[in-house]
């Protein structure tokens, strides 16, 4: 049975089924849940995560929220009073377990045979002398200076440990409620993973609520200007709506959470799903205008019969491109690959069956005048005239120009870096970015690695090893602060012994003295004071290394040093840190990008090979893709845009969409050549006819994606910028570079079997 007969026979079912499927897919959407936890996007068995978990299992989960307060002088009486009130208000929150600040961290010192252990700020000083004394005390206190207060006394930090059993929303909204009371006088910034998750979550919800309807409205307007006929707008639009419903409904059905990048799925559907329907409607309008005596059935039959092969082919290439995401390492990327390829398949089926089925039941519309007139003045038409001139008359220079452009832009790849800073997802000036700048410039830095020591922690050998590590690490310019039990033991030794004593500022040589130091401290401090650096039975201890790095290379340098130290000691067993997980994630983002890129590219080469029955078609056809990808990564390098979880999806999507233009071009070129035209004439004719379709198609996709510029998340904005750049390059390659190349190379595959295509 031919496709047109099938549509006529099952017309009713072809209308009912899509509607029923859509409604059914809407139901599971009520169960959809946004998951902003970036850590869960990656496999559990990555080494850095295993190490991190094993440290958490010993020392407890510690996922703090950092509050940074900026003031002219933190030690001012009124500022300190505010800070003290802020501290007290925070500890009164149910959602908070503990708050570490100047009011809790200890000042350990010895005075005339007395060891004193007090909070750094025990009371708020009021006279200039008291303030000076406090200043001097803080400057000499390694547990406070550079950790809870900056060296210039302009910033203070509060480390808030959230209580278990509360959501990020509950915790942060309560913190905001309190912090807002102080914002009038002091600048306050927040940082930390729970806050990042909270911000992603709220921005993702906002994006879905605003961008999705906006994208749909823009698409409606675009369709209206393209067709100026109600059915021309509503039919492709209904396919968009149905495919969005399927993509989004499929996620909860398959048990997927909505990730930050899942927001891209409906936007992608807006951009892609209308493509196939648009071709059908355009052909219907064309035939309706050119053949006034044809019946509706004739028009629909003719449109479908002529178009179904190229439409299926372009949809297939898009599906294969997007499917490249399933070999990505990031779970949401795989999920996005699966749901969007299924949804694109449905968009294809609906476009080929649902739209014609509806059209069959309609009366013929009023023919559009524009198809009759030969005059064309639009920008697209002018561009097409220019491109056919350039590619036919200046073929070789065109090729050279493209290659030069490729080299110049492509060189930027050497500057391309994977992103190791999650806060860059947020716009400049966002609290997360400001706070991380402050922490990097005025405190020890935003990165932290913990080294786990195992053995008899109270033994001098272990503590001296720790002390040696501390000294070596502190000498690195990147390292801001190092803290462990050994630094506390040295502080106690300074408080208990007088300067000049043999034991002053030293790790004692015997275990008894160390044990007595610790016992002595436990009589004046809190048992919790050591909880985060040594376990209950003193068999495991942690050393916290705080440092600042802005790129992968420097992070690797610090990691190498720590790794070397750890390997050199029998007591240091492993090291871990959030930043190392982020680093491994960044590396797997790069790997994921490469995997899906190679997969998609290979799939496309093979598909083109099969479609045009020639490996050369595969190679030439993939040139626009390779060119646009190299330029895309090169541009990122030049602009300093880092490779992140968002733009790592780009190549698959760009390949999937971008290849369509070349297919349409080859298809028409073959036909024109089979009509006995010269290469030059064939190119000119192809660009005039199919070139227009390709350009309109590309513009609709670009308009679809451009909605992302309004996103609250920088990674989505960057994604929009880069995908549009890539698609424009694919378009330019398909309309200028490939025609010029075909004229020069005259590939054989274009000259075979062309007659049967159109």
């Amino acid at each position: 049975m031919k496709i047109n007969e099938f549509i006529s026979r099952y017309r009713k079912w072809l209308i009912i089924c899509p509607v029923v499927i859509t409604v059914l897919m809407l139901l599971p959407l009520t169960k959809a849940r946004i998951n902003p936890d970036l850590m869960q996007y990656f496999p559990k068995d990555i080494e850095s995560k295993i190490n991190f978990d094993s440290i958490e299992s010993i020392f407890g989960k510690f996922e703090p929220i950092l509050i940074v307060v900026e003031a002219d002088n933190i030690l001012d009486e009124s500022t300190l009073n505010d800070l003290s009130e802020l501290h007290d208000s925070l500890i009164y929150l149910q959602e908070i377990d503990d708050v570490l600040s100047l009011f809790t961290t200890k000042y350990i010192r010895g005075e005339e045979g007395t060891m004193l252990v007090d909070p750094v700020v025990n009371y708020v000083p009021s006279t200039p002398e008291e303030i000076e004394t406090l200043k001097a005390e803080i400057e000499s206190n390694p547990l406070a200076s550079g950790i809870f207060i900056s060296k210039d006394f302009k910033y203070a930090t509060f480390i808030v440990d959230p209580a278990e059993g509360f959501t990020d929303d509950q915790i942060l909204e309560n913190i905001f409620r309190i912090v807002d009371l102080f914002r009038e006088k002091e600048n306050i910034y927040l940082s930390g993973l729970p806050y990042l998750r909270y911000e992603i979550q709220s921005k993702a919800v906002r994006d879905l609520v605003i961008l999705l309807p906006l994208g749909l409205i823009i698409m409606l307007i675009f369709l209206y200007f393209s067709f100026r006929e109600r059915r021309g707008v509503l039919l492709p639009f209904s396919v968009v709506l149905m495919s969005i419903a399927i993509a989004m409904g499929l996620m909860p059905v398959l048990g997927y959470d909505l990730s930050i990048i899942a927001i891209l799925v409906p936007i992608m559907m807006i951009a892609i799903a209308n493509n196939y329907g648009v071709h059908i409607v355009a052909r219907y309008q064309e035939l309706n205008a050119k053949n006034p005596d044809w019946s509706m059935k004739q028009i629909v039959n003719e449109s479908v019969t002529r178009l179904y092969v190229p439409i299926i082919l372009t949809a297939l290439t898009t599906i294969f491109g997007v499917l490249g995401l399933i070999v990505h390492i990031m779970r949401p990327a795989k999920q996005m690959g699966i749901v969007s390829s299924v949804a694109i398949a449905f968009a294809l089926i609906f476009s080929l069956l649902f739209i014609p089925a509806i059209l069959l039941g309609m009366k013929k519309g009023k023919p559009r005048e524009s198809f009759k007139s030969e005059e064309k003045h639009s920008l697209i038409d002018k561009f097409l005239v220019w491109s056919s001139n350039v590619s036919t008359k200046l073929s070789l220079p065109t090729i050279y120009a493209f290659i030069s452009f490729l080299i110049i832009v492509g060189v930027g790849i050497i500057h391309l870096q994977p992103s190791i800073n999650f806060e860059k997802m947020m716009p400049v000036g966002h609290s997360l970015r400001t706070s991380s700048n402050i922490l990097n410039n005025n405190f020890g830095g935003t990165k932290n690695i913990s080294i786990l020591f195992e053995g008899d922690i109270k033994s001098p050998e272990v503590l001296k090893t720790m002390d040696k590590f501390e000294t070596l690490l502190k000498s690195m310019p990147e390292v801001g602060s190092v803290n462990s039990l050994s630094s506390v033991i040295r502080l106690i030794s300074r408080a208990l012994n007088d300067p000049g004593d043999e034991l002053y500022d030293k790790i004692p040589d015997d275990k008894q003295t160390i044990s007595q130091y610790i016992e002595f401290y436990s009589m004046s401090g809190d048992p919790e004071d050591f909880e985060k650096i040594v376990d209950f039975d003193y068999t495991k201890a942690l050393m916290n290394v705080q440092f600042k790095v802005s790129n992968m290379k420097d992070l690797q340098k610090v990691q190498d040093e720590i790794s070397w130290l750890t390997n050199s000691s029998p007591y240091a067993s492993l090291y871990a840190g959030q930043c190392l997980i982020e680093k491994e994630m960044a590396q797997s983002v790069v790997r994921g990008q490469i995997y899906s890129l190679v997969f998609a590219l290979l799939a496309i080469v093979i598909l083109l090979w099969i479609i045009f029955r020639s490996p050369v078609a595969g190679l030439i056809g993939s040139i626009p893709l390779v060119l646009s990808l190299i330029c895309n990564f090169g541009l990122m390098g030049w602009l300093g845009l880092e490779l992140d979880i968002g733009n790592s999806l780009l190549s698959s999507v760009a390949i999937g969409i971008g290849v369509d233009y070349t297919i349409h071009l080859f298809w028409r070129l073959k036909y024109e050549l089979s009509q006995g035209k010269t290469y030059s004439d064939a190119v000119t004719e192809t660009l005039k006819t199919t070139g227009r379709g390709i350009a309109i198609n590309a513009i609709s996709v670009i308009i679809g994606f451009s909605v992302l510029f309004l996103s609250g998340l920088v990674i989505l904005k960057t994604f929009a910028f880069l995908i549009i750049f890539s698609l424009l390059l694919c378009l330019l390659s398909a309309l200028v570079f490939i025609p010029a190349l075909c004229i020069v190379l005259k590939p054989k595959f274009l000259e075979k079997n062309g007659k049967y295509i159109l």
Partner: protein
Amino acid sequence: MKTKSLLLAVLIAVPTIISAQNPKEISEKSSSTIEFESMEMVTTLNIHDDKGNVRVREVAVATKKFGETTKTLMRFISPPDVEGTSILVYDYEDKSDDMWVFLPSLRKVRRIVSTEKGKSFMGSEFSNADMSKPNTNDFTYKLLGTDVLDGKECWKVEATCISRELEREYGFQKRISYIEKATYLSHKSELFDSRGKVLKTMLLSDFRKQTNGRYFAYTMVMKNEQNNRFSEMNVKQFQLGSKLDENSFAVSNLGKQ
């Protein structure tokens, strides 16, 4: 007329009944029931974490009251690496405690200054405040009612810190004590943190009546309800009164016993 005098009798009687159940008095009487002017004991302190690990300390303690000051001497018997470490505490009626520690490996006496009574006692869940008699003026008292605990009828007395400073000092906001009506012994106390959540529960048991008529709890357990750690103190030997003279409690003699 008759009714009027009856009413008057009731009016006079009511305050007397209330005063007999005045929560502050109940608390004061309760703490004096277990107060000793001088005694000596050997006790083990077992500090348990939430994973089943335990730290054991054995301490010899002597307490004696000299004038208004209660002086306590504690000496570690085990574990071996802290054996001989001694602590001397002067508990004044009107000011915060003084505390000195002798470290045998340094052969030095060092003073510890701490204003916070809520601080941990030897790294256990007990606080220094739990080890001494509370100052009743620091709290407001409320009788919450009665309850039966292990068959004993008890008053439920709530003591709330009168200021935020005191809350910080004691490390809790309020304490609900279960005080046995018959004996005035407090069998259980629940401590609440500043957010009103249960922080710790203290159980006192194995009360033994001493020759002076007062009681001594041979077992004390303090459980931190928020982190599931608990510490227990078991008295191995107890002796009423101490033969030590004031000189033995002098700072200059610390570590020499």
